[in-house]
């Protein structure tokens, strides 16, 4: 397999754009990624388009805006891991030697979708709310409660993920929200599904992101600073009797992480930063352990230690709030900043776009282009996405 590089990335602002079609957002992201790469539509030999709501033909509709060059288009759907799965297809298209330069684009026009999966079918025959809940807020509430059951994690520990990611998001002009939310505000916002409050749930929205992917050899014709895709991994959930009732988001992430670290030849201690799938605040903490950023049962201590915050410490203004949650005997074994972009909690989660946007964020940091949220000395970054039920992607990028 050949070495694969990313030479151009872009994302639109995430938010609500009711007047724009998904294909407008995607074409904007695609053309800006080309500009970033110094390439043109004629250089792109295939397009991999991730989109959930547009069903079939999303990529062809994007090309009608971006340039109908007649190239092959593959449309990808893989729940919340849709965009990152499109990127992985682009990776293999290059790694295999089939093409020298391709594009992955992820897009979504969700509008105010409300509770995902809700409101289908005849109300009289719907099991939702009558024999438990099958919606994402309930699933991720219970994911958090499983961690509480095993390790005594408190609601406040989970809430810190929201405080941190909203703190980071203030410096991301492309994020849906640029507003800080101190601990008491997160704790006092209305409960959606315990232990997650409103500010611990990511918003729905619209947006797109794109990446120009090429062989390392080709990359050197366009830039002196290509970003290497050191690992591109996809897993699904292995059988377990528990997962028949509660989706297991842990095992497939652990499996993906192990393969990705082996592929890239790095470990969690080598990572400068991680963009992980914080669709709910509870998810962020369990993934610290799944990705090996801390030991099992240490996620609450890890976030309270300051390690995953930009600057690797709790901001002075929040020190007093966090103090009761700090375990002074805990020594973090990794210093990866987590969700410097603001995460899904601030940035938003237009489902098809998310997996490409996470990778774009890592690229900007590795190039030193992340502005006020720049992670210092960024060298290796990991982007993680999970979609139910269930797909997990991990990409590791290196300078």
């Amino acid at each position, binding site marked *: 397999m050949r070495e694969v590089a990313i030479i151009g990335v872009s994302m639109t602002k995430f938010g609500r754009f009711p007047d724009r079609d998904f294909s407008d957002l995607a074409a904007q992201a695609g053309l800006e990624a080309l500009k970033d790469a110094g390439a043109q539509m004629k250089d792109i030999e295939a397009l991999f388009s991730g989109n959930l709501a547009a069903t079939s033909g999303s990529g062809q509709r994007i090309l009608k805006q971006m340039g109908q060059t007649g190239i092959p288009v593959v449309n990808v759907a893989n729940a919340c891991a849709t965009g990152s799965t499109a990127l992985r297809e682009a990776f293999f298209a290059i790694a295999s030697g089939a093409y020298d330069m391709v594009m992955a684009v992820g897009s979504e026009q969700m509008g105010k979708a409300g*509770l995902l999966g*809700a*409101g289908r079918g*005849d*109300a*009289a*025959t719907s*099991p*939702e*709310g*009558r*024999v*438990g*809940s*099958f*919606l994402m*807020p*309930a699933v991720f*509430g*219970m994911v958090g*409660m*499983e961690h509480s*059951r095993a390790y005594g994690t408190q609601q406040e520990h989970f809430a810190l993920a929201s405080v941190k990611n909203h703190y980071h998001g203030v410096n991301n002009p492309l994020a849906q929200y640029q507003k800080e939310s101190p601990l008491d505000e997160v704790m006092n916002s*209305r*409960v*959606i*599904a*315990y*232990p997650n409050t409103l500010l611990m749930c990511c918003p729905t929205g619209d947006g797109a992101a794109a990446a120009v992917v090429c062989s390392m050899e080709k990359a050197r014709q366009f830039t002196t600073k290509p970003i290497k895709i050191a690992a591109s991994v996809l897993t699904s959930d292995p*059988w377990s*009797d*528990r997962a*028949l*009732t*509660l989706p297991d988001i842990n095992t497939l992430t652990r499996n993906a992480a192990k393969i990705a670290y082996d592929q890239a030849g790095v470990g969690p201690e080598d990572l400068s930063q991680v963009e992980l799938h914080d669709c709910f605040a509870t998810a962020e903490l369990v993934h610290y352990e799944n990705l090996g950023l801390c030991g099992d049962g240490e996620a609450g201590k890890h976030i309270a230690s300051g390690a995953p915050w930009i600057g690797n410490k709790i901001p002075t203004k929040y020190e007093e709030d966090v103090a009761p949650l700090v375990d002074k005997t805990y020594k973090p074994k990794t210093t990866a900043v987590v969700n410097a972009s603001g995460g899904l909690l601030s940035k938003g989660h237009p489902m098809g776009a998310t997996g490409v946007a996470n990778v774009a964020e890592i690229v900007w940091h590795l190039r030193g282009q992340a502005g006020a949220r720049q992670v210092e000395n960024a060298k290796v970054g990991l982007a993680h996405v999970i979609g139910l039920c269930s797909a997990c992607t991990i990409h590791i990028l290196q300078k």
Partner: protein
Amino acid sequence: MAEKAAAAPEIRPLVPHLTLGETRDQDYLNGSRCKSCNALYVGPRSFCGKCSSQGPFEKVRLSDEGEIHVWSIIHQAPPNVPAPYIAAIVDLTGGGSVNTNILGIEPKPENLKFGMKVKMATGKVSEDRDGNSYIAYHFKPV
């Protein structure tokens, strides 16, 4: 259509893993055990995701008792679903686990404990336009 409209309203289980008896105290949860690998599924099953067999499956009666594995209190629910309510996963005595509502206690975190013993009961939860009734199960603390 006229024939269908004339049919007597039925009493139906809301979910396929609930088997209805003559009376509500005879209702029970059903499961399927893979005869190849012994994997236990809640409800009917034709294929085994664990061992890839196409059956046969042994139909089994699951316990009406168990304990709460995890719970959440749902405040934001779709229209027509009264909230807040307690959603939980209950591990049944002897195997199998189910999603369920927990009734009989106020939906507040301090009222819930991991491992809390619970027992199943059933009751009518809805009726469709043709007058058919739907029966669902729930669990209450013992």
